[in-house]
């Protein structure tokens, strides 16, 4: 089922959470709403679910105008960051809730709950209370609960945000596989660009209440529409007035045509990655990332002179010197010049 979001505006007092946002979500897709915290992506999701009302604009789900429908009549499954488990019901009763209140036959409900608990690998926990489950298990229960009513669309608000890194990684892979199995139109909100790039078919970058870019993960990574998108999707640095990714900066031991000379200011090894900081006269220092093998081959040390150039096939864009560092800092918190900072 498709979702059509048209000209949605939402303000909280003076704060403009969403400013004339229009997005279309393809039926059966797995879409990420990606952006920094406070950028309006959760508000947008809640408006689609009917948990929040827009000041103006319209939402259509599966071609039907849902703008004025209460949440219980939108056919939307919603998964919350903090699980929102019904604490006084067993896992099975939690999952059955949507069917129970529709007064479906008992046998049908039991069969469906069993099927869903198998799907989320919680079949042996049916009689536990939510308080006895781990965070990851609770979130899987919440997913089964949302899927039980066969929603037209599944909406997940930072679904893995409260989980630790390892469980988050597992659940990401699992959500991807689940979507391949169930094919329900799914939209999830995240501020983690890695999560979006890894899981989604389509990414909608939302910042400051606006849609910055819509596209496939590769589109966004390879041809970012703005400095903001480029810097939000991964670390960036500046070379010769252009915004580039540190792993697209080539380090050479000799001068070649079009290269820039600089002096190595710092070398930091992180596993297989070597992060190298190069001071360039008259410009902010440049960050480059090499593999461990390339570092050994080059054998650069602090104080050495090296030559820098853009690697072949690199993505780069002209940086607007006045505004770009500021924009990037506001958006992604990654440092533009000098050291490479891992994006959140």
């Amino acid at each position, binding site marked *: 089922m498709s979702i059509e979001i048209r000209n949605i505006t939402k303000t909280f007092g003076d704060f403009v959470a969403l400013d004339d946002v229009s997005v279309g979500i393809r039926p059966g897709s797995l879409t990420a709403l990606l952006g920094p915290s406070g950028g309006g992506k959760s508000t947008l999701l809640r408006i689609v679910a*009917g*948990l929040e009302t827009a000041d103006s604009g319209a939402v259509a789900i599966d071609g039907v105008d849902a703008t004025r429908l209460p949440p*219980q*009549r939108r056919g939307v499954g*919603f998964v919350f960051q903090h699980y929102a488990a019904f*604490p*006084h019901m067993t896992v099975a009763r939690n999952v059955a809730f949507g069917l129970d209140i529709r007064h479906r036959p008992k046998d049908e409900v039991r069969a469906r709950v069993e099927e869903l608990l198998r799907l989320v690998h919680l079949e042996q926990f049916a009689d536990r209370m939510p308080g006895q489950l781990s965070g990851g298990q609770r979130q899987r229960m919440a997913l089964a*609960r*949302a899927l039980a009513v066969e929603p037209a669309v599944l909406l997940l608000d930072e679904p893995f945000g409260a989980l630790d890194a390892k469980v988050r990684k597992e659940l990401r892979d699992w959500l991807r596989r689940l979507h391949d199995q169930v094919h329900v139109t799914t939209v999830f909100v995240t501020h983690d660009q890695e999560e979006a790039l890894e899981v989604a078919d389509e990414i909608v970058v939302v910042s400051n209440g606006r849609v910055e870019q819509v596209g496939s993960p590769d589109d966004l990574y390879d041809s970012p529409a703005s400095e903001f998108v480029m810097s939000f999707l991964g670390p960036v640095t500046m070379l010769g007035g252009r915004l580039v990714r540190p792993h697209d900066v080539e380090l050479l031991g000799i001068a070649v045509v079009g290269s820039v000379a600089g002096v190595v200011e710092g070398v930091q090894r992180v596993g297989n990655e070597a992060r190298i900081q190069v001071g360039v006269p008259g410009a902010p220092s440049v960050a480059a990332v090499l593999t461990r093998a390339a570092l050994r081959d080059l054998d650069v040390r602090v104080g050495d002179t090296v030559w820098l150039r853009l690697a072949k096939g690199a993505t780069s864009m002209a940086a607007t010197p006045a505004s770009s560092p500021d924009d990037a800092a506001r958006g992604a918190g990654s440092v533009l010049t000098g050291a490479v900072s891992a994006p959140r």
Partner: protein
Amino acid sequence: MTLSLVDDAARAASSTRPGGAERRGRMNARRRGTRAAPPLSVGAGLGLGAAVIWMTVLVLLPLAAVVAEAAAGGWSEAVRVLTQPQTAAAIRLTLVQAALVTVIDVVMGTAIAWVLVRDRFWGRRLIDVIIDIPFALPTVVAGLVLLALYGPQGPTPVDVANTRVAVTFALAFVTLPFVVRAVQPVLETLDRDVEDAARSLGADGLTVFGRIVLPALAPAIATGAALAFARGVAEYGSLVLISGNLAMRTEVASVRILGYIEGGDLAAAAVVATVLLAVSLAVTLLLGAIGRVGGRRG
């Protein structure tokens, strides 16, 4: 009986010195029927000793004395007192009115707590403070105010003086805060996402309240109700002026007890008091159980 209780308490205070950290051990000891408990820190022992002595002096001893006084006359004396028509009528009126007011409090108290927590309106904080006035006002003053307002000379067309409605009024006034104050903090900590989740699963407002909110509030409502009922059973000051204390009609048990005391029949007063105590205790336990079961059901 009084003596043995004191003895028990003293022994509990001196020989066993269990504390919070050692709860498992203490329970094991109890299961084995021994009084042996692992030795505890001086602080924990002192704390427990102080708590037990305080409870004994303020609560256990007076209660035991009342029950002992009532038991002194034996069953026949108790039956004689309780079957005396005026006394029976007073006890019946007290229990019926306390139960009625408890029901009113459960509904109104939950509603007031809901409004105070969930709605934002001008004067909310003022109302939040006013809720506690029935606690702060001396009950006789409360009775006087009620009489002045809703009595024969009052400015309102309502005149409930010397009727059973007056008893309901007075009890409702003094027991108002219990359910409100029990429910309010629980409602404040309730996760709104849980209600949103239920709505997105297809529940309308009534279903969300009945299946999600009410079970979460049930234990708090039960606690408030038990307190309100117990207070209603024991109330004296606020209704003594407005109810008129008419025998067989508006006389409540506490007034009857005072009547017995003034007549020098302490044993009869103790019998009535013991009945009130027993009923309050039973209702408290029952409501606690209902709250726990209600909290488990969805």
